[in-house]
């Protein structure tokens, strides 16, 4: 027995070492840095070990703004993406014509670089000749300065991200839908089940595990949002920082302002939030099983 498990660990060793070096070590390092006041990256000196960095960032209105932005972002992007993806996946699964074509269209964002999509959406959101304003003008809505006003920067980011994260959600929902037996739907027809009840009582529970997976992954990814901001606002965090997010804040603190301690403290806060939500989610779904 003992020997066997030794062998198992040996096989795992390369992967474990890589994880240790590139994931665990930076994590510990960031954790340590977050308690070091005025850390200097060049000579490794610091003023003292204390909570100064944490106090600083929580007194920094940019951090608070980044945190609330990220919160709002998560609350809108994850559920909207899941709900829309579910509807589209169900439609795609219902033996429509050109199914393959539609699947490809919806999956394209997943395999295309975020930067490229960002450029395209930059045009769509353009206030003078953008597609979106064109569309809205048909309904008599005045031109909206999507990417150039403080008010609309975050909503633009959210719309863009919903569309982008739908690709992954649709993909796993479609895979899940194929596992639901056709006979269940036939049985539901014989039992005169209304469409909406078929959806809620058969389809949704049938892909329940996929929905909860999409929820966790979507939430973790949404908390780490950075690429989308970068792509949509050409490397900035929106007009006057109006679309700032926590990761963008961390990046800015670390590379532009060389405030390593504060950047690390923000990273630790983000880590704790994601960890906490994951634990809550796991205990909630764990109880249901």
């Amino acid at each position, binding site marked *: 027995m003992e020997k066997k498990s030794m062998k198992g660990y040996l096989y795992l060793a390369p992967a474990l070492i890589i994880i240790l070096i590139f994931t665990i070590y930076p994590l510990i390092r960031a954790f340590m840095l977050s308690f070091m006041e005025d850390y200097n990256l060049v000579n490794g000196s610091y003023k003292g070990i204390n909570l100064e960095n944490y106090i600083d960032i929580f007194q920094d209105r940019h951090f608070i703004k980044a945190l609330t932005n990220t919160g709002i972002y998560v609350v809108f992007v994850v559920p909207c993406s899941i709900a829309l993806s579910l509807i589209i996946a169900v439609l795609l699964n219902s033996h429509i014509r050109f199914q393959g074509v539609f699947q490809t269209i919806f999956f394209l964002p997943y395999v295309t670089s975020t930067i490229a999509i960002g450029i395209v959406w930059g045009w769509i959101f353009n206030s003078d000749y953008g597609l979106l304003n064109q569309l809205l003008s048909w309904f008599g809505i005045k031109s909206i300065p999507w990417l150039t006003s403080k008010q609309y920067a975050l909503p633009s980011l959210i719309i863009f991200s919903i569309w982008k994260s739908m690709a992954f959600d649709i993909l796993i929902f479609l895979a899940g839908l194929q596992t639901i037996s056709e006979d269940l739907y036939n049985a539901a027809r014989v*039992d005169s089940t209304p469409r909406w009840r078929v959806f809620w009582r*058969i389809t949704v529970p*049938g892909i329940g595990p996929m929905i909860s997976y999409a929820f966790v992954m979507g939430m973790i990814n949404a908390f780490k949002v950075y690429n989308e901001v970068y792509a949509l606002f050409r490397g900035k965090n929106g007009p006057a920082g109006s679309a700032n997010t926590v990761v963008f804040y961390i990046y800015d603190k670390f590379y532009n302002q060389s405030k390593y301690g504060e950047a690390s403290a923000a990273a630790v806060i983000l880590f704790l939030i994601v960890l906490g939500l994951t634990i809550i989610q796991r205990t909630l779904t764990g109880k249901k099983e």
Partner: protein
Amino acid sequence: MEIRIENLTKAYGDFKAIDNMNLTIADGDLVGLLGPSGCGKSTTLFMLAGLNKPTAGRIFFGEHEVTDIAPEDRGIGLVFQNYALYPHMTVEDNIMFPLINRKVPKNEARDRAYEMAKMVQLEGLMKRKPKALSGGQQQRVAIARALVKKPEVLLLDEPLSNLDAKLRVETREEIRRIQQEVKITTIFVTHDQEEAMSISDKIAVMEKGVLQQYEVPQKMYLNPGNLFVATFLGTPQINVFDAEVHDGKIYCAGNMLRSGCMVPDGSYKGGIRPESFNVTLLPSAPDAIRAEASHVRMTGRELQIRFNLGANEFRLLVHSDMQIGVGTPFYLTTREKQILLFGQDGKTVGKF
């Protein structure tokens, strides 16, 4: 509710899954729809259920034509081959589901579900999920769910195929009991001929989308309409041999099996069931045929003996107390009215 099927055809492209089927099922009958895999049993059932659209032909339930009526308006209960229980609902919710959909008040729905559960002996399992039930229990849930809305027709698609041998026999008796209790017109799909014969009022045998014969089980077994039906019913299978008829006498490889038959001379296919031989160790009659056992298998109740007449191999069954081993010579005659003759087209010519 009487079911009438008229000229029913289902084509997939050029392929006819069901070819011009005509069938009338009397009110309250249990009919076994029997045939080999792929012969169109499920297709027929799904057309009766309305889940599949016929290419041509008409279906009547009683006086009403239902050909173009949606499944939910046909008043049918359907039990699927894999039961198709809703996996995320409890047994109780599964059985109540058709009632809730029909806007029956919740309390009444629950009462009727429990009443149903009592009949199929599911009390005590109502709060379980289907996953936590045995195959037989799942099957009873499926039947309860199908019956709870008081349908006028019950359709069962190979409901016993997932059960082990013992449970199969138990559950098929149970289905029969429930069917008699509710007196509901029932179609029971199976590819197991013994199952079909033992619980059906009448059997419909199908092959390659064509209805071969529709008859009471005993009559069908004794008077099969053609060679296919004869070979499909009965285990061990009926012996099929090359038969020659001269002057009203039936020969197999030069051995006269029967005389005085009113059939034109010529070549036929003969058929005789394994249990239709009289076997003795000493000649019992002047025209008894001498044969030698090539294989002997003891099955408990009976001995299964194989022997040859010319190039034709036969199996016969005798009581297991008979002392016959491999190579033992014996004498046989055939029981009256037990030799079937089939024409070259496979149709039954007569019984001698």
